[in-house]
């Protein structure tokens, strides 16, 4: 059996990659994918912990995270499509009509 710390290391790496992606990448779609990576890093941790504790709570949570992520995708993609239609770009640096 693989010790839980291995999963945790992978999960931390995924989470860090996701967080860095959000901060560094400029394409709204890629930023969004990085956020999904963060959520899935948490999912991995949940499943790993769930097995160590022999409880189903963590696996159950993953189901909820998946559905919630789907709802986020729906809203997020709609917003990105709307922005692309009016600006012909989804570069987050070009979203600058709000400044003060």
């Amino acid at each position, binding site marked *: 059996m693989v010790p839980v710390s291995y999963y945790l290391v992978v999960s931390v790496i995924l989470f860090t990659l996701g967080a860095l992606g959000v901060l560094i990448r400029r394409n709204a779609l890629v930023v969004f994918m990085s956020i999904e990576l963060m959520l899935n890093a948490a999912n991995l941790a949940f499943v790993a912990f769930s097995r160590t504790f022999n409880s189903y709570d963590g696996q*159950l949570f993953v*189901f909820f995270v*998946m*559905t919630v992520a*789907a*709802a986020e*995708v*729906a809203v997020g*993609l*709609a917003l990105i*499509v709307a922005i692309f*239609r009016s600006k012909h770009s989804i570069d987050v640096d070009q979203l600058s009509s709000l400044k003060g």
Partner: protein
Amino acid sequence: MLLEYAAIGIMILVVSLIGLIAIGLGTIFGPKRQTDRKAAPYESGMTPIGPGIRRVPVRFYLIAVLFILFDIEVVFFLPWAIAFRQLGLFGLAEMLIFIAILLVGYIYAWKKGALEWE
């Protein structure tokens, strides 16, 4: 521990070897005649029409988003189906409520014309 991975390791090795050999033999012995037709992207043997990357009509996004939303909800049906007998009538009622909520979204999408193609 590591021994358990040996089989996988050997398989990876063999698979990549076979692949390399097949490609290598082809490049060494095969004749190379480069024509325009050959350099063109492969489209199931048809003559390629237009550029490979083009804008997808926005309707596809709408359909895809609706698909994701209603598709992912199945994730809740699976655990329910497994525990169906233990949950009994109560579980069935709960699931029907869940489906009713989904139905609200479906009727909304339908009435707003999101399911129409034209």
